[in-house]
């Protein structure tokens, strides 16, 4: 598959995804062609006046000169109106189409697990809906418009040339063709240089942004001078590469001016030699000088937008890649609703692996009755968090079945599932707004009074009163104004206020101090009476008071049962517990 073909295919796919792009495109192009007629008015009117008036033996007839000028001006006005209308249509349809594409891509990405599974790729995903679409937009609005304008101009200028003198027109066309080949060749040579510039630019920006991000570390370790040196070296390397490419590109492209001079020379020589025998008029040859320029100028634009169109095409490819990746968690086709009472959980031989990776969870079967409080324990990397994500359907199992309230998890409508099952992850992500608004993410219709009550129910009233503006305290970008522990408190209230029937906590209080942690746990136990609660515990105190404990080790469920039984059995759990008690023993 050649590159050109695949580019065409990609564009076709884009038109299917954003149909607004293609709406009325043919009419738009036709109108653009008419509008571009303005550029050939001058050569024609000049030819007419020179041949029919200035050089006519009878001298100049002003009536005829004025009427020709009047027709030309009228043509100009029509051209302006039609051409403008065409471009406005193009702008409208491309803006609408691309905004649709942006929203579609965003929605698609939001439903992918890559955002929470591979956190380091998030920034990359953001550029799918920002810079990639922006590149497309700019291409459509600047490159695309000039491409339409330029190709209409080439078409019209060529048509007029053929009307005047086809032999000369052919010479021009051959010349233009050679010129285009020459420019393409330059472009290809330069492409390699551009690529190495991009690498150098990326590297220098990487070094620079690392230096800025790491300023606290730089200060703590006194490495200011070394950091400056490292950045200076990277910037110098970038300068050298950019300057060399710049110089090289200038030389290549300016040599095209010489080529344009050669073409004009060829027109003069051929025009005189051929024209004499073919009855070509002086006005026609003069018009050719102008028309030749009209041919070459847009080609320069086209060649310069080639670079542009290539980056637009690769942006488009990346966007399509996102849109064509399957939706991982889909709303069921044959939904089945949960009953109104409490929720039980059942895992039946569940296996999970990422598409290219080894098993993260293997053969997990377990049962949690309605209203039970269970703890899940295990070392880092044992599969606890994956278990939680499967349970709340942030991931789907590779094999096996999960039932909640007796219903296959994959058949519960997502909206219903989210309102009945709450999940509190460890990170405690907060949005850049007030504490109250963050809590409202859990239940949009909650009043301030309800939110206030929720904090008090969880014994967090004292903490709330330490905030400068209480519920109206703005938490900052990613909750940066609060400490990690405080962010977890808000996240906990946020899930709590949705009053779920199944609560899944994934180390949700790991950064909270021990005394507050204990208080919170008691409050939660009081409040979740009768509801099902699954707690992934970093502190085994939670396990001690749970109805049952599930112990994970290297992706398998290895032990399960009440705390006392597991302790007595002397397996992995009793080791973990021994670690924990020595760890928490104060004396």
């Amino acid at each position: 598959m050649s590159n050109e073909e695949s580019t065409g295919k990609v564009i076709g796919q884009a038109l299917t995804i954003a149909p607004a792009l293609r709406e009325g495109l043919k009419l738009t192009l036709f109108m653009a062609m008419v509008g571009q007629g303005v550029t050939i008015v001058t050569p024609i009117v000049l030819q007419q006046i020179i041949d029919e008036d200035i050089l006519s033996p009878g001298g100049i007839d002003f009536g005829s000169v004025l009427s020709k000028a009047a027709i030309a001006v009228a043509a100009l006005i029509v051209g302006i109106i039609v051409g403008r209308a065409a471009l406005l249509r193009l702008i409208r349809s491309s803006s609408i189409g691309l905004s649709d594409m942006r929203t579609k891509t965003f929605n698609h990405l939001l439903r992918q697990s890559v955002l929470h599974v591979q956190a380091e790729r998030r920034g990359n995903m953001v550029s799918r809906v920002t810079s990639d679409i922006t590149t497309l937009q700019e291409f459509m609005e600047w490159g695309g418009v000039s491409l339409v304008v330029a190709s209409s101009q080439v078409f019209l200028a060529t048509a007029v040339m053929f009307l005047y003198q086809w032999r000369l027109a052919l010479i021009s066309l051959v010349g233009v063709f050679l010129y285009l080949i020459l420019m393409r060749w330059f472009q290809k040579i330069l492409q390699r240089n551009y690529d190495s510039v991009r690498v150098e630019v990326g590297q220098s920006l990487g070094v620079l942004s690392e230096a800025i991000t790491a300023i606290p570390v730089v200060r703590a370790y006194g490495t200011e001078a070394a950091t400056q040196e490292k950045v200076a070296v990277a910037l110098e390397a970038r300068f050298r590469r950019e300057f060399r490419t710049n110089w090289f590109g200038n030389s290549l492209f300016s040599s095209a001016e010489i080529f344009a001079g050669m073409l004009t020379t060829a027109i003069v020589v051929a025009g005189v030699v051929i024209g004499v025998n073919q009855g070509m008029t002086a006005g026609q040859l003069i018009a050719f000088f102008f028309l030749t320029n009209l041919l070459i100028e847009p080609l320069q634009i086209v060649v310069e937008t080639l670079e542009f169109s290539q980056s637009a095409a690769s942006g488009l490819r990346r966007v399509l890649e996102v849109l064509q990746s399957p939706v991982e968690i889909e709303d069921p086709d044959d939904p089945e609703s949960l009953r109104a009472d409490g929720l039980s959980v059942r895992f039946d031989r569940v296996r999970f692996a990422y598409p290219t990776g080894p098993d993260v969870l293997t053969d997990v079967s377990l049962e949690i009755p309605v209203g039970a409080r269970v703890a899940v324990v295990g070392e880092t990397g044992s599969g606890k968090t994956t278990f939680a994500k499967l349970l709340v359907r942030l991931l789907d199992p590779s094999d096996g079945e999960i039932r909640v309230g007796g219903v296959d998890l994959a058949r519960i409508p997502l909206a219903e599932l989210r309102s009945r099952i709450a999940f509190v992850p460890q990170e405690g992500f907060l949005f850049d707004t007030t504490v109250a608004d963050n809590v409202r993410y859990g239940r949009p219709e909650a009043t301030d009074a309800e939110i206030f009550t929720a904090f008090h129910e969880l014994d967090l009233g004292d903490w709330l009163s330490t905030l400068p503006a209480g519920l109206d305290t703005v938490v900052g970008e990613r909750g940066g104004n609060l400490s990690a522990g405080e962010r977890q408190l808000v996240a906990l209230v946020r899930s709590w206020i949705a009053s779920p029937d199944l609560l899944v906590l994934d180390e949700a209080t790991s950064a909270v101090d021990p005394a507050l942690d204990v208080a919170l746990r008691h409050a939660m136990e009081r409040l979740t009476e009768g509801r099902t609660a699954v707690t992934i515990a970093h502190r085994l105190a939670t396990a001690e008071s749970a109805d049952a404990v599930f112990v994970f080790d290297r992706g398998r469920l290895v032990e399960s049962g009440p705390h006392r039984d597991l302790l007595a059995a002397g397996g992995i759990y009793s080791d973990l517990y021994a670690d924990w008690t020595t760890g928490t023993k104060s004396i």
Partner: protein
Amino acid sequence: MTSTTVEVVSCDFFMQQPELTPTSVLRDGGRLIWRFVRRHPISFSVAVFGAAIYASAIIVASLVIGWVTDTIVIPVLDEGESYTGLLLPAAVAILGVAVIKAVGIVVRRTSAGYLQLRTRQDIRNDLLDHELSLKMAWFNRQSIGDLLAVADSDVDQGTGVLGPLPYATGVILLLVGSLVMITAIDPWIGLGALLGLIIVIVVDIKGSWVTYRLWEVVQEARSKVSSVAHESFDGALTIKSLGREQYVSDHFRVTSDALRDDLIKVNSTWTSYQTVIRALPQAVSIVLIVVGAVRIDAGLLSPGDLVTVAYLLALLAFPIQLIGFVLWDLAGSQAGWKRIEEVFAADDFVGYGDLYATTSGGAAPVLSEKVDFAYEVGVNVLEDLDLDLDAGVTLAVVGPTASGKSTLTRLLARLWDPDSGGIRVDGRDIREFALSELPREVSYVSQEAFLFDDTVAGNIKLGDEFSSDQVETAARLAGAHKFIEDLPDGYETELGERGTTLSGGQRQRIALARALIRKPRVMILDDATSAVDPSVEAEILRSLKSAALPSTIVVVAYRPASIRLADEVVYVDNRTVVAHGTHEELLRTEPGYARLVQAYEDDARRMEQEAS
């Protein structure tokens, strides 16, 4: 709804900068250009020289075409004369001019490129130097994303005008030269051309100006889209687990559609002006051709002269469009430069003394006297904090969530300075140390382990000279040696964006090794092992204890096991040190401390009682 958003944005914008006018853009732009050009006067002069060559070549090219018309085209085609002997000089003239034009382009673009690229390099180096000398208080007020954008896109934008500047100078030369030449050919046509060009330029500048203002609104809308996307993707797990996808999608759609409407507005305006600007020179040409015909009839002008004028106007049409772009670039450069200047204007510098580090002194005593500190004025985080620490002691800092523990460690490492009071290491005020000297005595490890885009060994050495034995010893002590050995290239494994990804606990252990290898006189660990599994953590702390480090150690800890390893404990609550003593003493004398540290034990005991 969408249109209201647009209006709000534009209102904000105009309120912020009421003084921006085309005149102010030209005036301030001139100053900005002077600032850049002053540093590289030669490359700028050469670029302008190249532009002058280019402009002259265009004028001469149109003269050549006129001359060809009068001496070859009309005599041969219209009057039937022979062309023998005429073609060679014509070809030489046309080609010669083309070569000169090409040379002008190369000279202009290459020197302008040099000027622009060098200026960018200078500014980026200066920015980093400046930022490195500012206080953390300043960084705390910035978003890292904004600072990166300043160093990247704002520098590009701020210097954007330097690229087309020599060309613009050339265009002005070209315009003046053309008018002079046309007037010399025929004063009436010259006058017509002058009037015509003035109209074109006025429309052009007006169009650019209007479009530029709209464009700034678009930029705002664009950054809004980007920040909504960033926040939504960062919080994706939360959004999904709360079932708020639709809400977030709707929010994004509104933002994206606002951008779409702004884009349609700006591009429609731009296109409207462009269509007129492209057609206007043609209208001028047509009028001048009519005038020319009259003058030819009166015998005052040759047909070749008329062709010269028309040809020149055709060649001018494109450069004239660029005058408007320069205004854009000028206004855009000022917007970019404004953000750069805000960074340069920050003068919250860290003050340094002239004290050199004494690395050979062994563990150092640490003293903090009457320290007050607030991140934001009025919200004290630490008040009247005293701490007296003997050399070689291992101190645990314990306190409830948000009591000021981390802040205390940052002050001890001088990442921030106290608002009042002072901190002394081995009797010397830490503000008296010269730049980069204090870190040779005091090492600080935070909870967030920052790793550089470098090898494991590079991350531990951090630019200083250490042998690979020293690196390995430090890694062993930090409990990192085993997993490093298992990495694909051991200590030479590349980390960072393009390298291996490590778990939080592994990252923290490498950061710990980074401090240990330096054998600091004071080592400060702010919850530096929070992501390490408890049993591994206990092992690390035990090996630190038995290694007999030449350091005074301050460690923020929650786990009683870690606290028990410390010689002394301070209990921090309500912004100050409440008690200082051994763990046993504090358990006896400080009920708050006991409650915090024994929370789990108490809880377990209570549960047992309830059970029985």
